């Protein structure tokens, strides 16, 4: 059982508060959705959690260990995986090689100068790709894949590091609706199967309310609601943020 405890996270840019006092707890088996209008601070929140940005104050603890101040690669090594809003894979490698890179990194074998990389960890990489439905495309260059398929590869890469916590920034952005639901269903399955703790942001409300176990609503850097999908949907404040209050 893993637990990510976020307490009073704050971060400003040039005097403007992007994230102002966000607190929540993420546990194994949770599929926690973070939603909110554009500019609410969702991506900033993610960047604070995985070490890309340093918070002005607040703490992020993984099973009691403070993550604030560590570089992204250390946080990754402690078991916090991440996928990006804009897909970022290694475009000059094949699909399988992308996953193999993560496995090599996990095994601390990256400094090898002699044995070809393509032959190392190929089997486990293929197994992971099979799991996300990309087995048949393992040897295609990652740079020519359809957008939705790249998102699957990213998921396989994230799984390859055997994370206990997975941060997914808009995992289905740019995908067709059917693809979105399939990917969310797969994610939900993985959460159950591996006891993952997942935090994800999402614009597609079907994806959010269909699969999330809990929902956090962020507006102008602050959490304005937290609860089960039904509770959040019924919350008048959430409705006003999404449909607009005053004019």
């Amino acid at each position, binding site marked *: 059982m893993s637990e990510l405890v976020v307490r009073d996270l704050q971060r400003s840019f040039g005097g403007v508060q992007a994230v102002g006092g966000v607190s929540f707890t993420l546990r194994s088996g949770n599929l926690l959705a973070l939603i909110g209008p*554009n500019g609410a601070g969702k991506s900033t929140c993610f960047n604070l959690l995985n070490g890309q940005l340093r918070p002005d104050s607040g703490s992020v603890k993984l099973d009691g260990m403070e993550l604030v101040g560590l570089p992204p690669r250390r946080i990754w090594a402690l078991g916090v995986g991440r996928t990006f809003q804009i897909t970022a894979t290694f475009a000059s490698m094949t699909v399988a090689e992308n996953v193999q890179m993560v496995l090599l990194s996990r095994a601390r074998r990256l400094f090898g100068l002699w044995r070809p990389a393509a032959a190392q960890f190929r089997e486990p990489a293929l197994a992971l790709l099979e799991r996300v439905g990309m087995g048949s495309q393992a040897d295609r260059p990652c740079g020519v894949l359809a957008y939705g398929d790249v998102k699957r590869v990213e998921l396989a890469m994230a799984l390859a590091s055997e994370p206990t916590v997975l941060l997914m920034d808009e995992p289905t952005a740019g995908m067709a609706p059917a693809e979105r639901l399939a990917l969310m269903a797969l994610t939900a399955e993985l959460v159950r199967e591996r006891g993952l703790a997942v935090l994800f942001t999402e614009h597609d409300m079907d994806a959010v309310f269909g699969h999330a176990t809990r929902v956090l609503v962020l507006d102008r850097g602050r959490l304005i609601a937290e609860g089960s999908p039904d509770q959040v949907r019924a919350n008048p404040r959430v409705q006003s943020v999404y449909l607009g209050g*005053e004019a």
Partner: protein
Amino acid sequence: MSEPLLTVDGLQAWYGRAHILDGIALTVGRGEVVALMGRNGAGKTTTLKAIMGLVERRAASLRFDGRDLSALPAHRIARLGVGYVPEDRRIFADLTVEENLEVGRQPPRPGAPTWTPEKLFALFPNLAEMRGRRGTRMSGGEQQMLTLARTLMGNPSLLLLDEPSEGLAPLIVKQMADAVRRLKAEGLSVLLSEQSLSFASAVADRACVIETGRLRWTGTMAELLKDDGVRAAYLAV
């Protein structure tokens, strides 16, 4: 009925390999305010950028005031009388308020209201008080006003207004709505993207609802307010 000021048909757009817009079609009549509605990520911003010629790759039939826009670069489109106000404001932060306006200045255009800094300062009194101030020292609402004023200096006949109310305090949102109504009264046509139903209903005549890059619904603002089904499907959480 005469030809609409802007006619968009079969608009496609891509970012890299991601296909963002798929067959958006809409029109904006002379003197009309049309709201482009949809959730985050539905493709509203991309639609406006694509009309303006600011996306890498697009395909469409685009007619504006009897001219074909589909092969023109952004600066030519702007000179024909299309004014673009981006959502992320993008004021020139090192330039003063007056200099920002100067960048937007274009010759007067027949059939469109002509703007001068003085006339704009009357419309946005806040700006008048800080004409020598640099953009770095302005609040979000002031920046939004400046972005709009800067575009108006080009004397456009059509305004593309991206998320004008986003991230603004309620009072500023109200000022913004007043400004849009004033512009309509001056004879400008406006296509604005908006997430806030209340803002859109306060200023727009018609609405187009898009979701995942496709047009889902189009009708008058009054019809949209009555249609719970559409709102629940495409706008609400």
